[in-house]
């Protein structure tokens, strides 16, 4: 083993460590320019939808219930224009073994790790994914290490993350807890090199194709229940995998007209790598601190080419405030009898607002819930926020200010979405690609790739490139 464990030395060995740890040679899909063969990668490295259904059924992942939220739909109709207020459904992903849709991602990686003869599996995540990997490792007889970003420099940890660490330990994983910083990745590279375990990256074709079953199932369930396709599916957006996998599943179910909407909690102004800001946010995922950078630069991840490419699928991307999500979390518990969240409730808050723009005969689906409990409840997160000096009050959520003030709506009509400028994000992505990959002239295949990767067309890309030219 290489003995130079300095930050730079380990980061320089990244590609070699990853190749051993995910068993994918990404060079097979590279064309030496911006373009790479995305669909070929998904097809050759991943599994077919039916294979994944079989893998997931072995560990009881998937086939979660689709629940109609009749009371929330009724309220949405009461406060919207006559004839407006789509039927709101939610996919109860908390019913998966570890309590979230992340089991779908973890199941394929764990299956793969076992099939390739790895002794163990590693995930670097502070979220539900750790529990999912731990759970799948337990079922498959693999050892598991979860690396988490947990504490600020004063040793203080967000209750939600502490709970996720507890859950990983409950499922038999070794949990390595770190202070704030992107060197979480450095630590996980060191561990991968030292142990020779499989990297359950969130961004391999395994992790993404595992979510396709979610989009596929919900499409089938909506068709069976209502005789129609979902008008819109709303997906809490962080690293992009949830959007990508769900959208691909919808397409495989033939839902070409279903609108794919991403939703994130607005955390504008908070720096994700800041020791100070770390504990001044009340949402640890599903927020703009991941959503925006991962959409505009997906290849920033631990693997050379990210299989999660949200701009390829998003029709719309909206944000909601922390206070609005806490409000809807209460509403889901009190009106629908479901104590869940917080992550899926980000898209639920957005769905509640967007349903009011839609017609009564239309259908909007919130595609996930997650388990909840100590540390993960609004009461735990808001108690912690107050301790960190954040003001919490009732009022108009438009006054919400991340890191300073959380405003809980006084009335459901105050829940609104803010549209992100997808066009601007697409241009930003094209610019990032040109900076990172294009050493020489941009080729026609690069333009075709960028058009596909931004759900736009060749002319749009040509115009964007013209604007970028000096």
């Amino acid at each position: 083993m290489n003995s130079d464990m300095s930050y730079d030395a380990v980061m320089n060995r990244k590609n070699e460590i990853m190749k051993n740890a995910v068993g994918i040679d990404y060079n097979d899909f590279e064309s030496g320019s911006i373009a790479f063969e995305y669909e070929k990668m998904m097809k050759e490295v991943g599994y077919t939808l039916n294979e994944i259904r079989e893998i997931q059924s072995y560990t009881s992942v998937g086939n979660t219930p689709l629940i109609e939220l009749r009371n929330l739909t009724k309220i949405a109709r009461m406060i919207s224009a006559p004839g407006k207020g789509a039927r709101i459904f939610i996919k109860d992903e908390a019913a998966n073994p570890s309590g979230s849709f992340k089991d779908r991602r973890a199941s394929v990686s764990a299956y793969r790790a076992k099939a390739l003869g790895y002794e163990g599996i590693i995930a670097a995540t502070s979220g539900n994914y750790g529990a999912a990997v731990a759970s799948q490792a337990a079922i498959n007889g693999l050892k598991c290490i979860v690396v988490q970003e947990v504490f600020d420099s004063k040793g203080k940890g967000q209750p939600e993350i502490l709970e996720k660490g507890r859950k990983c330990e409950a499922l038999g994983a070794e949990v390595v807890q770190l202070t704030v910083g992107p060197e979480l990745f450095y630590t996980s590279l060191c561990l991968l090199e030292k142990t020779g375990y499989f990297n359950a990256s969130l961004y391999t074709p395994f992790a993404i194709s595992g979510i396709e079953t979610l989009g596929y199932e919900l499409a089938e369930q909506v068709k069976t229940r209502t005789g129609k396709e979902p008008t819109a599916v709303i997906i809490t957006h962080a690293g992009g995998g949830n959007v990508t996998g769900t959208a691909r599943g919808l397409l495989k179910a033939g839902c070409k007209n279903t609108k794919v909407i991403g939703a994130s909690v607005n955390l504008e102004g908070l720096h994700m790598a800041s020791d100070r800001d770390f504990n001044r946010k009340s949402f640890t995922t599903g927020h703009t601190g991941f959503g925006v950078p991962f959409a505009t630069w997906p290849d920033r991840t631990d693997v050379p080419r990210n299989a999660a490419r949200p701009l390829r699928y998003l029709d719309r991307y909206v944000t909601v405030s922390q206070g609005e999500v806490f409000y809807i979390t209460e509403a889901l518990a009190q009106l629908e009898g479901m104590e869940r969240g917080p992550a899926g409730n980000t898209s639920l808050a957005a769905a509640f607002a967007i349903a009011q723009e839609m017609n009564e005969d239309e259908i909007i689906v919130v595609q996930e819930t997650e388990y909840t409990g100590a540390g993960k409840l609004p009461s735990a997160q808001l108690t912690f926020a107050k301790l960190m000096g954040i003001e919490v009050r009732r009022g108009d959520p438009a006054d919400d200010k991340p890191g300073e003030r959380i405003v809980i709506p006084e009335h459901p009509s105050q829940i609104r979405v803010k549209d992100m400028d997808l066009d601007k994000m697409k241009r930003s992505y094209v610019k990032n690609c040109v900076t990172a990959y294009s050493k020489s002239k941009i080729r026609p295949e690069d333009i075709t790739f960028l058009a596909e990767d931004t759900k736009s067309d060749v002319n749009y890309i040509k115009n964007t490139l013209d604007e970028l030219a000096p």
Partner: protein
Amino acid sequence: MSAKKGDWVQIHRIELKPSERSSNLPQDTQSVPLEVWQKGFATHDAIMGDEIEIETVIGRKAKGELVKVNPEYEHNFGKPVAELLTIGAELRKILGGEENE
């Protein structure tokens, strides 16, 4: 306080000193070290603050300063939050059509 061989303990160590960290960090993060905590069974007796070796639940060995014996989970459900307590009743009122009465 001390740990006996076989006790379930938590260790702490500095993974990267401020000068060894990534150069691309906000100032507040750059000025503090990257720290690590791990849990496992002590492989020998030790006194709090001493370096100790542990064996983790998956059988890996790790070393660090002994910081806790029988580390417990301290996160909880939080305090009652006044800003949330009335939301359910307010919504039921709207649902029942009593809002403007």
